[in-house]
Structure formats: structure tokens, C-alpha cells
């Protein structure tokens, strides 16, 4: 195509000033929210494989008593980096990155607000991940103090070497990156909406991103502060001879550490909600209640951090127990809305729907065991046991990760123009459904039988062998499922782009544009349709059906 204009091109960039689309600079210095979003999501998925590899190695170590696949030190490093990477580099960035990719599309905006700043945040995240993982190549290995790096263990006196320093640098970079990215996405949702897209017409996914990003704004500065305290403690370890600083660090860290759990949950529940509504072919039930409960849920989430410190005797246990248990109210509303959306719907069961359906009961297990852990009398018993590991993994792996994959299968055609292979998708789903429950359900029994978390091995007469064996078999299935997913993605990306703009009969604006969307999301060929509710495309389809019925 050539330019036929004889008018001047006033703002044409100088030759070589910027990257061409396919060039390295064009990709790595892009200002397109979709490109930055896909880079973030792709990076997070690659890092998920790294963290998954660490987890599989740990499960290999624990499959039988007294194995020596890893040394004790290396085992400590593996569980530390597994947890840190999954939280700081995978689940949180993926949640925020999904928002970055989808929110401008869902609200009819051409781009994210402050795209350069957003790209800056992506690169902060990547360098953070590189810094953290590079700890493995230092003399003493990577950080080995657990993902929350309690002092005084994490000080240079008790954990010397550069591994912890690099962990601190990595967390600072990634934490700052995610804070900035969440800020630009939130700004976009609040201020850059298309005409007609009022706040109460935003899709449920966008609302879930708004709620999550509000928590990021409120809590991530606290992570940076905690990281700073640790850094000072590395230089001056005497700081932590005063217990006020040790407990103070825990407060500052968990003020970030609990809200981030919901940052790693809300966008995935939003994704599951969109999938459920689309494949039930009806509007999401109880939209306004869902929105209010998300915001209430998010506000309460900021007030529960002290339940991580029940056993220190330094937190107001009554208050934190009360607020933690109060979370069941908004969570219950969300669950009710999701289930009610299915009732009476015309259900279809592609892979995305299967992941979304499995998300509901599996996250429920994580949530209900969380209520148990939020009860001080019980928490004193299960503290530092495998029960907590089970609760945590049901929340994030069996819960959020299933929401994540529901989103991946659902929006993959939009992002790439290609639909993932359904057969392989279902193999992936069933391997993961069985594997997840085989892996994490035995953790509750292990905790009940007294197995402490973070031990590299156990004795044959401890009575932990059978559960660990089952768990490791389940982990193997998860690894197999991950390979099927990689195969599916590789095979699909090799095919031509044949996905229509709306392969699923979606409800929200992103399905009104091409797959993949053009540079500024909507064009003359694919304009932003009229927005009259939070499901504008469903409205249009229904209007068309009524018109046809009237004509018939």
C-alpha cells in the first residue's frame, strides 16, 4: 500500500528514529499495550515453567524418605526461589499483565495510559526476574530464607553471600515494575473509557482488575519499604538485634503480603466470570452485587495481614481474625453470582469453560481452609505445617492457576488470531485437574500428621511416605500437562491465523474487533459498538434476534 497524499506529513518520524514493527527495537521498545501485555504474559509463563521445574525437583526429593536428589542447602534455595518466582514473577505479573492487555480493549480505549511508563515497568519486572534467578550462579547459591525473607535469618550475619542481595534487588525491581504497571492500567480504566462506557458498564473482568490494582497501589509501596528494611539489615545486621525491627518487618511485609494474594486472585476470578457468562450464553448474574462485593473484598483484604502473625503474639488477633472471617461475605456473593450465572444457561464446554468450572470448587477448598487458618486457636496448631502449604496451593495453584488457564484458552484467539487445539486443551485440563488434586490434597493429611513445611527429607517411620508418594505422582501429571500445553501452543502458532473476531460469541468489546486487534484496537472496519450495558455484544445479538423474530 502506498501513500497517495500530496499533503505534507508533518510529524513523520525521522528515518531510523524508531523501531520498525518487526525489528528488535520495535518489539522491545513498543508502546502498544497489547505488545507489552503479551510480553508480560509470555515472560510470566516462561518463568512459571522455571518455577514449576524447581517444584518438580523438590517433589522428586520428597517422593521417598531420605532421598538426596538435592542437598539441604539447595533444597532451601529451591523452595525459596519457587515461592518467590511464583508470587513476584508469575502470578502477580500475569494478573496485572492480563489487565494491561484486556482492559483497554474492554473499555474501548486505543491504548493504555502512559505506554512508555508501562514499558518501563515491564523491563523493571524482567530485570528483577533475571536478578533473582542469577542468585543460582553465585558462590553460595540463591536466596534460601523462604519467600518472605524473615530477618534475622535473611541478614548478612546468618545468610551471607550475594544470593539474598540479588533476591532483594529482584524483588525491588519487580515490585516497582508491577506497582507502576498496575497504576497505568488503573488510570486507563478510570479515565480512558470510550463514550458510553460508564463505570457500571465496565465488564466484570475490568472491575476485577480495578479492585486488584487498587490493592496494588495501597500495598506495594509497603513491599518496597520492607525490601528497604532488609537491605539496611544486610548492610547493618545489628538492626535486627532489636526485636521491634523483626516484628516491624513482618508487619510491613505482610501489609503487602496478604493483599497480594488477592491481587493474584481477583483478575482470575474476573476471567473465570467472563468465561462462565460467555459459555452459559447469558449475562453475568448479579453484576452490581459482584462489583460491590469485589470492592468490599478488596478493602477487607487490606485489613487482614495480621493473621500471618498470630503466633508472634504481637498482632491484634481478634481484629485480624474478625476481618479475615468477614471475607466470606463478599466471597460468598461472588460465588453465588458465578453459580447463578450458570443456572438456566445454554452451557457449552470448551477447554476454557472446563478450567473456569474447576476453578470454582478448587478455590473454595483454598478459601475455606483459609478461614480455618484465620482462626487463631486453629492457626496455633497448623502454623508451619504442610496444612498451610495445602491451603496456599489450593488457593493459588488449584484456584488462581485454573482461572489463569481459563483466561489463556479464552483470549488466546483474540491475542494471536489462532484458536488453541481443543483436544490437546482437554488433555491438558484433565491432567491438571487430576494432578492438582493428587498433588495438593495429601498436603492436608501431611499437615494433620505433623509434617513441617520446608524440610528437605523425612524418615521412613514418620508416616509421611504414602502421602508424599501420591503428591509426587500428581506433580508428575502436572508436568505432563504443562508439556501438552506447550505442545498445543507451539502447534497452534505454526498454523495460519484463521480465528474470527468473535469465535465464542463473547459479550464484551474486545470481541468486536479483529483477532488480533489492529494497532489502536478499533478501526473503521471494526468500530467500537454502542455500549448499553456491561455485555454490549450480547445486547446487539439479542436486538438482532428480536428484529429477526419481528420480521419473521
Amino acid at each position, binding site marked *: 500500500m502506498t501513500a497517495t497524499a500530496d499533503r505534507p506529513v*508533518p510529524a513523520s518520524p525521522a528515518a531510523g528514529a524508531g523501531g520498525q514493527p518487526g525489528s528488535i527495537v520495535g518489539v522491545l521498545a513498543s508502546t502498544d499495550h497489547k505488545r507489552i501485555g503479551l510480553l508480560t504474559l509470555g515472560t510470566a509463563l516462561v518463568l512459571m515453567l522455571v518455577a514449576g521445574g524447581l517444584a518438580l525437583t523438590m517433589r522428586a526429593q520428597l517422593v521417598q524418605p531420605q532421598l538426596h536428589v538435592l542437598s539441604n542447602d539447595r533444597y532451601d534455595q529451591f523452595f525459596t526461589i519457587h515461592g518467590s518466582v511464583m508470587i513476584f514473577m508469575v502470578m502477580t505479573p500475569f494478573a496485572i499483565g492480563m489487565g494491561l492487555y484486556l482492559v483497554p480493549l474492554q473499555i474501548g480505549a486505543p491504548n493504555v495510559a502512559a505506554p512508555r511508563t508501562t514499558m518501563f515497568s515491564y523491563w523493571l519486572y524482567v530485570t528483577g526476574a533475571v536478578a533473582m534467578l542469577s542468585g543460582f550462579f553465585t558462590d553460595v547459591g540463591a536466596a534460601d530464607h523462604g519467600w518472605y525473607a524473615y530477618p534475622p535469618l535473611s541478614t548478612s550475619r546468618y545468610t551471607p553471600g550475594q544470593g539474598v542481595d540479588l533476591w532483594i534487588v529482584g524483588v525491588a525491581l519487580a515490585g516497582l515494575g508491577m506497582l507502576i504497571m498496575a497504576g497505568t492500567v488503573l488510570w486507563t480504566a478510570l479515565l480512558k473509557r470510550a463514550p458510553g462506557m460508564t463505570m457500571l458498564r465496565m465488564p466484570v473482568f475490568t472491575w476485577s482488575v480495578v479492585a486488584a490494582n487498587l490493592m496494588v497501589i495501597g500495598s506495594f509501596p509497603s513491599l518496597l519499604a520492607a525490601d528497604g528494611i532488609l537491605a539496611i539489615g544486610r548492610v547493618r545486621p545489628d538492626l535486627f538485634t532489636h526485636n521491634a525491627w523483626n516484628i516491624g518487618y513482618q508487619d510491613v511485609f505482610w501489609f503487602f503480603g496478604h493483599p497480594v494474594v488477592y491481587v493474584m486472585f481477583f483478575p482470575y476470578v474476573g476471567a473465570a466470570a467472563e468465561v462462565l457468562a460467555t459459555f452459559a450464553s447469558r449475562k453475568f448474574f448479579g453484576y452490581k452485587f459482584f462489583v460491590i462485593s469485589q470492592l468490599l473484598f478488596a478493602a477487607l483484604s487490606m485489613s487482614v495481614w495480621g493473621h500471618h502473625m498470630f503466633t508472634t503474639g504481637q498482632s491484634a488477633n481478634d481484629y485480624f481474625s474478625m476481618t479475615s472471617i468477614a471475607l466470606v461475605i463478599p466471597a460468598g456473593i461472588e460465588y453465588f453470582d458465578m453459580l447463578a450465572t450458570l443456572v438456566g444457561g445454554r452451557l457449552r464446554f470448551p477447554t476454557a469453560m472446563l478450567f473456569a468450572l474447576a476453578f470454582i470448587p478448587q478455590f473454595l477448598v483454598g478459601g475455606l481452609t483459609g478461614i480455618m487458618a484465620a482462626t487463631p486457636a486453629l492457626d496455633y496448631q497448623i502454623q508451619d505445617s504442610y496444612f498451610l502449604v495445602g491451603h496456599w496451593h489450593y488457593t493459588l495453584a488449584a484456584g488462581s492457576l485454573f482461572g489463569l488457564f481459563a483466561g489463556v484458552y479464552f483470549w488466546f484467539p483474540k491475542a*494471536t488470531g489462532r484458536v488453541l487445539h481443543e483436544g490437546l486443551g482437554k488433555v491438558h485440563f484433565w491432567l491438571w485437574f487430576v494432578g492438582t488434586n493428587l498433588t495438593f490434597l495429601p498436603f492436608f493429611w501431611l499437615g494433620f500428621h505433623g509434617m513441617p513445611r520446608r524440610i528437605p527429607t523425612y524418615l521412613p517411620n514418620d508416616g509421611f511416605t504414602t502421602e508424599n508418594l501420591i503428591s509426587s505422582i500428581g506433580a508428575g501429571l502436572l508436568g505432563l500437562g504443562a508439556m501438552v500445553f506447550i505442545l498445543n501452543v507451539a502447534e497452534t502458532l505454526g498454523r495460519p491465523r484463521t480465528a474470527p473476531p468473535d469465535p465464542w460469541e463473547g459479550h464484551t468489546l474486545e470481541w468486536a474487533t479483529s483477532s488480533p486487534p489492529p494497532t489502536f484496537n*478499533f478501526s473503521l472496519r471494526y468500530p467500537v459498538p454502542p455500549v448499553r450495558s456491561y455485555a454490549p455484544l450480547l445486547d446487539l445479538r439479542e436486538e438482532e434476534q428480536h428484529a429477526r423474530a419481528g420480521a419473521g
Partner: protein
Amino acid sequence: MMKLKPAHAVVGAWAAANLVLALVHLGFHPRSLPFFLYIGGTAVVAGFGLAVLLAVRAGRVGAQQRQPRRASAAVLAVIGVALGLAGFAYGWWLSALAFYPVALAAWVLRGERLPRGARPWPVALDGAEPARGPRLVYHGSSIGDAVPVPAEHPAHGPPVPPPPRPQPSATVQRGIWVVVLASAARGVLKALRGRRDG
């Protein structure tokens, strides 16, 4: 007075909900650090809400017209920040090197955004219609190639003028304030009376 806009009202209401929870926390005799931590976090969100409010009042809502062409400065700045922090692990001499990429980023930064009032040339994915409205000279970084759009295409037309901003109703706003203050006063009186009776 300004009509209440939901965007900042959502952030404000959320910060207010956190403030209420922090004040409830106070009733449980917490240590000072957790309490002030919570107040601090709430203040950060409130500050964000204030920024949203100011942006709304300045009319910075809707699609952004002026956009940067590329983000090379961002990449350079990250190299600088990473070098600066790497000094923590490998010696502070490394941090001194951070100056160079940061300075380069500052130099590159200015050329990355179109000057105010520039009339950009719309581009679109190969074979696709271009985006509406005067946006920017954009190399395009979506999947596909960006190509110039023919001059006769409507995308070259004059920009759509922004809709007139609605005039705020001072009376309504004043009325809301009166109701809110009266309700708050009533609530406080009720609470005090309840405590005295109890």
C-alpha cells in the same frame, strides 16, 4: 461546584472504607506501627484518588490523542535503575555506571513523543482499516506491518471536537454535602447516646 464523577468516587469510597477499617482496628488497641501502616496505605490510595480527581477536573478523560512512538528511553532507564541497584550486590562502583544509560534515556526521551498540535499520519495494520481520529505517527508494534493510509481515507479528516463539558449544578452538590454532614452528625450523636445509655 463540580458534579460527582464515579471514577474518583470509586477510589475515594474505597480509601474511605479502608479508613473505617483502620479506625475499627484502633478499637482493638494495636501497636502503633500496624495502625500507621494502614493509615499510610490508605493515604497512598487517597492520593491516587486525588490525582484522578484532578485529571477529571482538567478534562483529561477519554481516548488519548498524543502518544509516544516508541519506548527506547524506558529500556535505557531500566538499564540505569538495574545497574544502580546491582551495586547493592556487587559493589557501589557499579551504581556509578548507572548515570550513563539514565542520561542517554533523558536525551532520547524528548524525541519519542509528537510535539503538541502535530498532525499525525494515521497508519494501520496491513489490510486493516486505520484507527479513527488524529492519533500519531506510529510504527505499529502489533502483529503485522504498519502501512500508511491513503490520503483520501476518512481517517485523515479533521479531529472530532471534544464534547462540551457539562456545567456542574452547585445547588445539588451543596444539598449532598448538607445531607452527608447531617447524617454524619446524627450518627455521632446516636453513637454517643448509645454509649451513655449503655
